[in-house]
């Protein structure tokens, strides 16, 4: 339903990834306050490069030459999703409530091996066509379980704390500090950094899309999908 709103496309497409693009520049940057850059170039107040002839090269954050980004793969994903969602590793996701998503069902497509029975001694060099599907199912399942726990037992909520809801199951105030805190918690847990203002605004704005769909439990749906978006981001699935 909300597929076009999601960041899924970013999750497994690493080829063109420049790591410098992962987040907008924030905070003080060496050399950005005028003076000289690291190579001795004159810099303008915004970090732009002032050429000897007076021309200006627009301010640019350098990108990685290597762009060496690896899919976390099965074991690390299992550990990281468990830690981020506050579950033990075998609680994160089970297909049919019985079979561990990481270890049993989607093992190979998530970059695991099956040395003893199938003779797959090393992870496949490339992810498979089913890798994004498996990852989406796991993220959606894990997020749904966390959101249900947080909303059903708010006194022990881990990520979605103190979310005020109206009688229809919607958020009482999408601009409430508790919404910002939840978004920030998602970024801290999955991306190991604070959410920046643009990211908070984007996820707040996404609530409108959810309510416009006529969802009767808009707060829950928004929370699940916000969690889904962050947990399937490049920063969460790759390193």
């Amino acid at each position, binding site marked *: 339903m909300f597929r076009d709103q999601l960041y899924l496309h970013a999750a497994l497409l690493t080829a063109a990834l420049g*790591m410098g693009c992962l987040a907008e520049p924030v905070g003080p940057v060496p050399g950005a306050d005028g003076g000289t850059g*690291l190579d001795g170039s004159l810099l303008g107040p915004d970090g732009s490069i002032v050429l000897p002839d007076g021309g200006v090269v627009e301010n640019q954050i350098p990108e990685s*030459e290597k762009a060496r980004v690896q899919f976390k793969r099965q074991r*690390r994903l299992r550990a990281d999703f468990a830690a981020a969602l506050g579950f033990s590793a075998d609680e994160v996701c089970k297909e049919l409530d019985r079979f561990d998503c990481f270890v049993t069902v989607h093992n190979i497509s998530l970059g695991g*091996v099956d*040395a003893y029975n199938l003779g797959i001694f090393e992870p496949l060099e490339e992810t498979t066509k089913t890798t994004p599907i498996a990852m989406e199912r796991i993220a959606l399942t894990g997020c749904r379980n966390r959101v249900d726990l947080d909303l059903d037992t708010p006194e022990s909520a881990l990520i979605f704390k103190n979310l005020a809801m109206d009688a229809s199951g919607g958020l009482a105030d999408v601009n409430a500090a508790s919404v910002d805190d939840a978004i920030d918690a998602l970024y801290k847990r999955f991306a*190991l950094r604070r959410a920046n203002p643009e990211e908070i605004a984007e996820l707040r704005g996404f609530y409108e899309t959810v309510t416009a769909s006529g969802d009767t439990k808009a707060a829950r749906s928004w929370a699940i999908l916000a969690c889904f978006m962050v947990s399937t981001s490049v920063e969460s699935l790759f*390193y």
Partner: protein
Amino acid sequence: MPHGWMFAVSTLLTLGWVSIADAKPVGPTIFCEEYPAAPVCQGGAPACTFCHTAPPDRNPYGQTIEASLLPGTTRPLSTTQYRSNLPAALRAAERIDADGDGFNSGDEIAAGTKPHDGLSFPSTSGCPPFRRNPDYDVCFYDRAYAFRKVNLDFCGRSPTFEDLELFRALGETEQETALHARLDECLKSENWRGKEGVLWSLAHRKIKPLKAIRSGSYPGDPAGEIPLANYYDDYALFVYTQIDNNDARHALTGDYFVVRQGGTSGEPTRYVKQTNIGFSQSVLQNRRAGLITTKWYLVLNVMFTDLPRTAAAQAYRAFLGMDIAKLEGLRPVDDEPVDYDGKGVQAPFCSQCHSTLDPLTYPFAKYHGLTNFPFGSYDANRQRNVPEAGVVLGQPVRDLVEWAQVAANSDEFAKATLMDYWKLVMGEAPRPEELTEFTALWRRFKNENSHGVERMLHDLVRSEAYGVP
């Protein structure tokens, strides 16, 4: 075991088919004599595929050499003609951009890129940058990035946000200390050294387990349907050689076994060295050579074979990083192959590989696979027409124990060991611009680090390749 015969024969056929009639295995050696400083020559000669596609067919770079090599002279050239004139042909070819990527072959050889591959060319972008990236310190060693990566690579999980913030708040020296302290913690973790841990997984390719024929029953883990040998002994020995800075060469030279203990109910896994290990192993101590004389290795790779080429090729591939089936590590021995088992390997098409593979194999011929119960044992009288002496890496050896010592002390072993870990943490082989650092690391592993893997891993984490995003 019909399956075993098929496996052995198919391997033999594979090796035979990729053997070459006209290519010259001396080519890589001459190339490195001409370009001793080339990154591709550090720690060994390039594979035949540096100039060939499927020999004798040449790739674009090989074609430019061919064009300059005694043009007009009748083919095939004699070895003398080839040896004498190849250096000049190499020099002529280096001025040509064989793969059309904008760089001539000489520049590509110096940079360590592939002169036959248009997608492989020297880096043109420059560091340092105009200014620093506030999130990832590209072009510089980024300790926070390395800290996060160490946690994932070795502990198997990300640090928490709070953990990372605490790390960022430290000074430069404290960060360096904390980074390596975390690495030490991770190297003690179950994720690293436990059953199914990272080291265990690293051993799969070397041990090639098969549950259906594993012996030994454990709670919840019964023996296979046709129990022949227990590969858990092999995993324990391998992990032992990789931890606590034990000598990694013992993977090939160990004359002992290792028992795995603990690892359940929160108890850490321990590995205990033992001289003997009951009835699960058959080779007597003076004939042991680490993982290549375990019962599992011999059962799987020798099986019923008279001349177990598969056993030699697997050892070469798993521990020295060279796959003869891919024309890697060819070091032809004069007057070889003799063809003791009458397989026709003297045919020109086959002998290019078998002149290396067969003398590599002879020492294995004295070990039983499945031909003598209780399997996997040494027998000086096995294959009496085959000599026990052989040749590995160009060096004559009297038996498999000496074979293993030569192999374990070689540059190739050090390079292959580092390559295992490099690929583990980088996700790929070294890039051309990283070959100098790669070479320095395996040399340190072999010398200053006394073949201690954990010391090598600290060096690896300190490297620019690891810590520069």
